[in-house]
């Protein structure tokens, strides 16, 4: 798979039609998921309508973690097998992951205001998530700071791997420390503790996020590759002179 995609030409050809396709799927899923979440799914019996923000918050939070894990894998591939495309993938994924982490923080705060009576709380989950967000920022900043792209890729990869230690902390923070934030209620031993009627729209939304991520990722990767080609053209002009 990776070996197949490692060839940029092949990747560009593939992504040329894969990108719009994923985009379309994302739109479709959102078209189903959003109304379902907002109108069909029952309001939470404790929290009322405000609980519906769950359908934004939870998937955003999940994918914020997953995308970082994805970056960890691609970084490793880039470091060990020197697949240029892996570096590109990690680089393109970072802003998306950062945005989702930010979204999780914001929606979480908004949700927290009515339910916990506070916008922000320095408990394990929230803090560790904030830390993840900052790690994202650091990763992006490092990429931006180093002019030599090949260097930047490998250095950023090292940083990304170091940052992986944070993921389990975020995930298990709710179980390790006593937090306001509720414990894992979907992916947990003994099946989900959320009612089916909320679970299905949640999954649809999660898939929609995934499709959107795929589309944006490919877009970003293509943009980076095009910029590289432009720079190569400049360098060639330098050589020919």
């Amino acid at each position, binding site marked *: 798979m990776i070996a197949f995609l490692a060839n940029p030409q092949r990747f560009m050809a593939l992504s040329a039609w894969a990108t719009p396709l994923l985009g379309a799927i994302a739109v479709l899923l959102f078209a189903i998921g959003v109304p379902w979440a907002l109108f069909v799914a029952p309001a939470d019996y404790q929290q009322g309508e405000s609980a519906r923000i769950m359908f934004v918050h939870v998937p955003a939070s999940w994918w914020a973690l997953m995308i970082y894990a994805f970056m960890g894998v691609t970084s490793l591939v880039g470091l060990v097998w020197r697949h240029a495309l892996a570096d590109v993938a990690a680089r393109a994924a970072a802003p998306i992951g950062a945005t989702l982490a930010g979204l999780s923080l914001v929606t979480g705060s908004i949700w927290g205001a009515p339910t916990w009576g506070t916008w922000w709380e*320095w408990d394990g989950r929230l*803090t560790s998530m904030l830390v993840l967000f900052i790690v994202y920022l650091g990763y992006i*900043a490092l990429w931006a700071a180093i002019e030599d792209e090949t260097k930047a890729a490998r250095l950023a990869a090292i940083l990304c791997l170091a940052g992986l230690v944070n993921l389990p902390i975020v995930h298990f923070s709710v179980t390790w420390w006593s937090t306001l934030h509720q414990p894992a209620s979907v992916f947990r031993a003994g099946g989900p503790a959320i009612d089916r009627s909320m679970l299905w729209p949640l999954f649809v939304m999660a898939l929609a996020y995934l499709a959107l991520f795929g589309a944006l990722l490919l877009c970003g990767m293509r943009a980076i590759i095009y910029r590289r080609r432009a720079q190569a053209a400049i360098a060639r002009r330098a050589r020919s002179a």
Partner: protein
Amino acid sequence: MSALYAVFRRELALAWSAGGGAIAPVGFFLGATTLLPLAIGADHELLRKAGPPLVWVAAALAALMTLERLFQADLEDGSLEQLFLCAAPLELIVLAKGAALWLAVGVPLALAGAPAAIALQAPTALIPLTVASLAVGMAGFIGVGLVGAAVSAGVRRGGVLIALIVLPFFAPLLIFGAGVADEVQAGGPFFLLSGCALGAVGLGPILAAAALRIQAG
């Protein structure tokens, strides 16, 4: 005139090209503002009281760290001499450098003050004021920092030295700045802050220029 503009533009370009532009200082600022809550833990009362001061200390340190290499790099790579050979007075050149730094780092950082304030449980009503006062304060910090940077330009790993030199002068800015949050209606602290900042921006470049002339000799 065009000399000043050239310096200003170059400094802006450097600030944005290296260190990822504003991402890094802003990120550092947010990071630093999270440090204390991390250490304190979830004690609201404490946070609300210690919050504004902390935001200001973080801002001060962010200013410090961006300032550190400002003149040191110029001294090492020999571009400082170039600045002596231009028509504009060195004081104004230093001012231009500071202005560029303020635009590139100070302003974004002031804006980042909003989320930071929220994280530190500051009342939402105060946020615009916080941002405004941070923008003013950053100008003051940079004004003071210029002197520290110029004085310790020759020193390897001078960051800490700068800090040592300028922190005392940061104190008034910090106190008034943090005070702004306390008395909203009474603009007192804000005016005092602006006064200090103005003084720093006015005097800083003059002293810095003097120090730089010595550095070259």
